[in-house]
């Protein structure tokens, strides 16, 4: 009874803290000067309102939008299970306070991103059913001449590459099945290997556009200037190919640097793994059953799907479609076809393979981010950093700053929260100074690599911790994670910042 009471008291205190933070954020927002662009937008929408009145009204809207955003951040931090509920209430409040209209809300839930994720999650469900992941795990487990070093290299590579093909959550579930099988059989402490795989997963999730919802969001929302200042240069969204050309190399460089660090940090556990594997090899006993898994169809579907998605940019060009149309259409078409051919499992895929909880939260979050942008809050922040018509900000200052702020923020709050808020800010900066386009990459790497810093920094971390707890009743202490997480965060963010700085181009000066 006392425990129940104490738990209710804690929840009450958390709620009180959440509303206090929201109120404080709202008060701070009320001090922000209303942005000229937002005022103009408001006048367009409600032309009959005079500017002074509009300015006052806008301030109320800013307060509401910032407060709801702060509420959602607090709910993500304190009540993982209540965050969707808080987001629903927040959206209802924003609609009720006329911060946005119903049409604007529907338009800005970014349904195309949600549908892309739905398509990919369905594809993953089918591939799991067809034994592709089982085959990969079995092949590694039963590989001949496996040593501790080789296993960890394979583990890091697999964890780094898989999220770019499937999503980071599917990847970590899949990789941890491998880790648990090996640790169970060899009687090893699983936590070090779980940490290694989850950190590689967070890094690997930046490798392609599909690795992380953050990548999809940045890719579709970015306005990248490839030839800043050149005649006819306009900001365009990033494609799958752009990620392969620019994000994948940084991901691999960071993965190598972080792997070296983790090898050093967990050298005792790797040595023990090596000894146990050697004993096992000596007695000619494998680490699991060896069966002939019919994997070929699954592999063919995966390769076909990846090729289809990867070719979205030339396809759009050839068909005269809007940028990234095929990026959404391809996974939907693939998922649809698979559901038609495997109709007996179609309902299972939709009901069990798709993370509706996360997707609904994303939709609400995207709408709140729009509200911030719509009210001019993000414009005001962007104008503080890079004023319209002013001198271009220094890449040497802004790149590390964006990486640092998003990394630290993402270490404590879901990275998509930070990225969706920062997108309008980066968009505005790039709008004012097109040569700052590489900031989009800085945003991507800061948000994803920052997730490694704490145990709550990314969805993959939370899934890994939950799996570890359920299977072994093991908890990774916050400080234990932070100790290695900070090092990994520093190294990976350092590598990413250094390479992103090389991506800047001097703007073409008109003759």
């Amino acid at each position, binding site marked *: 009874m006392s425990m129940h009471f104490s738990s209710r008291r804690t929840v009450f205190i958390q709620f009180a803290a959440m509303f206090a933070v929201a109120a404080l954020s709202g008060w701070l927002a009320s001090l922000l000067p209303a942005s000229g662009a937002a005022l103009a937008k408001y006048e367009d929408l409600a032309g009959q309102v005079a500017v002074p009145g509009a300015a006052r009204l806008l301030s109320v809207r800013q307060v509401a939008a910032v407060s709801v955003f702060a509420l959602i951040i607090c709910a993500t931090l304190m009540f993982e299970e209540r965050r969707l509920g808080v987001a629903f209430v927040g959206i209802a409040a924003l609609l009720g306070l006329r911060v946005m209209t119903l049409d604007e809300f529907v338009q800005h839930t970014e349904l195309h991103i949600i549908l892309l994720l739905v398509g990919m999650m369905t594809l993953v469900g089918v591939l799991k*059913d067809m034994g592709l992941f089982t085959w990969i795990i079995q092949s590694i487990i039963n590989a001949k001449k496996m040593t501790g070093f080789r296993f960890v290299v394979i583990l890091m590579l697999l964890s780094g590459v898989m999220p770019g093909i499937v999503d980071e959550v599917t990847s970590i579930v899949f990789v941890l*099945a491998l880790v648990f099988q090996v640790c169970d*059989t060899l009687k090893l402490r699983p936590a070090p290997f779980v940490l290694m795989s989850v950190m590689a997963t967070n890094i690997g999730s930046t490798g392609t556009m599909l690795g992380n919802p953050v990548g999809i969001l940045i890719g579709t929302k970015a306005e990248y200037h490839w030839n800043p200042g050149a005649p006819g240069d306009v900001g365009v969204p990033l494609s799958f190919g752009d990620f392969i050309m620019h994000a994948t190399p940084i991901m691999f460089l960071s993965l190598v640097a972080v792997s070296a660090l983790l090898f050093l940090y967990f050298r005792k556990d790797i040595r023990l793994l090596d000894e146990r594997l050697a004993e096992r090899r000596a007695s000619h006993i494998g680490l699991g059953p060896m069966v002939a898994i019919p994997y070929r169809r699954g592999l063919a579907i995966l390769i076909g799907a990846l090729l289809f998605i990867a070719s979205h940019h030339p396809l759009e060009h050839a068909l005269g479609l809007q940028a990234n149309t095929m990026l959404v259409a391809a996974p939907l078409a693939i998922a649809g076809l698979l559901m038609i051919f495997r109709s007996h499992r179609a309902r299972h895929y939709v009901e069990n393979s798709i993370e509706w909880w996360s997707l609904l939260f994303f939709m609400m979050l995207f709408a709140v981010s729009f509200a911030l942008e719509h009210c001019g809050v993000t414009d005001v922040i962007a104008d503080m950093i890079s004023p319209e018509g002013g001198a271009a900000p220094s890449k040497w200052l802004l790149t590390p700053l964006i990486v640092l702020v998003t990394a630290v923020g993402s270490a404590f709050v879901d990275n998509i929260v930070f990225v969706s808020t920062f997108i309008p800010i980066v968009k505005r900066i790039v709008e004012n100074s097109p040569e700052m386009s590489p900031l989009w990459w800085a945003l991507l790497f800061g948000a994803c690599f920052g997730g490694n810093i704490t145990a709550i920094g990314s969805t993959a971390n939370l899934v890994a911790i939950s799996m570890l707890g359920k299977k072994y009743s093991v908890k990774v202490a916050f400080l234990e994670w932070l100790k290695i997480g900070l090092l990994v965060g520093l190294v990976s963010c350092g590598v990413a910042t250094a390479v992103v700085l090389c991506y800047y181009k001097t703007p073409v000066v008109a003759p």
Partner: protein
Amino acid sequence: MTAPLATGATPAPVFSEKHVLCHVECADERSLVERMTKLLSGSVSMLDPAMAVEAVMEREAQAPSFLAPGVAMPHARIAGLERTLVAVATAAPGRHFDGFSGPGAPARLAVLVLAPSEAPAEYLKVAAAIARRLDEPGAIDRACALADAGQVVDFFQPGGGSLHGHVRAADLMSPPPAVLKETDSVKDAIDMIVRTGISSIPVVDKEGDIVGVASADDVLRACIPDYLLWMEDLSAFSNFEPFSTLMAKEGSTWIADITDDDEFASAQVDEPAIRVAEAMARRKSGTCYVLEGSRLVGVVTLPAFLKMVFRD
């Protein structure tokens, strides 16, 4: 003279000289139960002797209650009884009670227990106390040799056998029916599981300390790990292919290679018996291992536990 059978915080069930029959001869079980119940009839106001006899005989018809070879413990739970009542009867030297045949030897000593049905621990406490008293070598012979009711009461007095205020894990346990050594192979484990029909077998080291539990589930999981279950169905392996890897190596695979490190349900021998229930509930296990330090001394299975609490 009244002898307390229990010490501790809970009210002690008592029996006195007037509840003892020494060196009696009886034609059958029913007549002995009737005579013993008659001794108790004046002890409490709410006892209906005829109904009590019927309740005891009905309980005995389900399964005769023997505490140890030669010691019968007919009993029943009676609704509305104020307190636990105990009567003791011994057979004439060299004789035994007709109709009381139990495991090992026919009964020479009978302890009738009538306990309130509202207090499930009461009967168990009495049974545990008497079992502890009779646990010493030759104790049953000595009890049966006593010709005087007062001496019988003295025999069961605390001091000779201490009585806890609660039922201990030790009072519920039975010897482990099957034990594996840590040096045994998976083949030995499968053989024992198949032979005994017991699905979880404790594994001990050379000192007798428990080091784990090998279960049929471990064997199944070694053959069909989680990642195989990701597949929609395993009908592609209609020839039990996932089992063939372990089958080929079962003789050279140690038990430790397939058992997981999950903690098993255990309780210390002197801990209150409720710890047994707690351990089984927390671990979602059907067996609790009773330990003395780390040494395995007994097991309590869930069906046996439920029988003792609800039916005995």
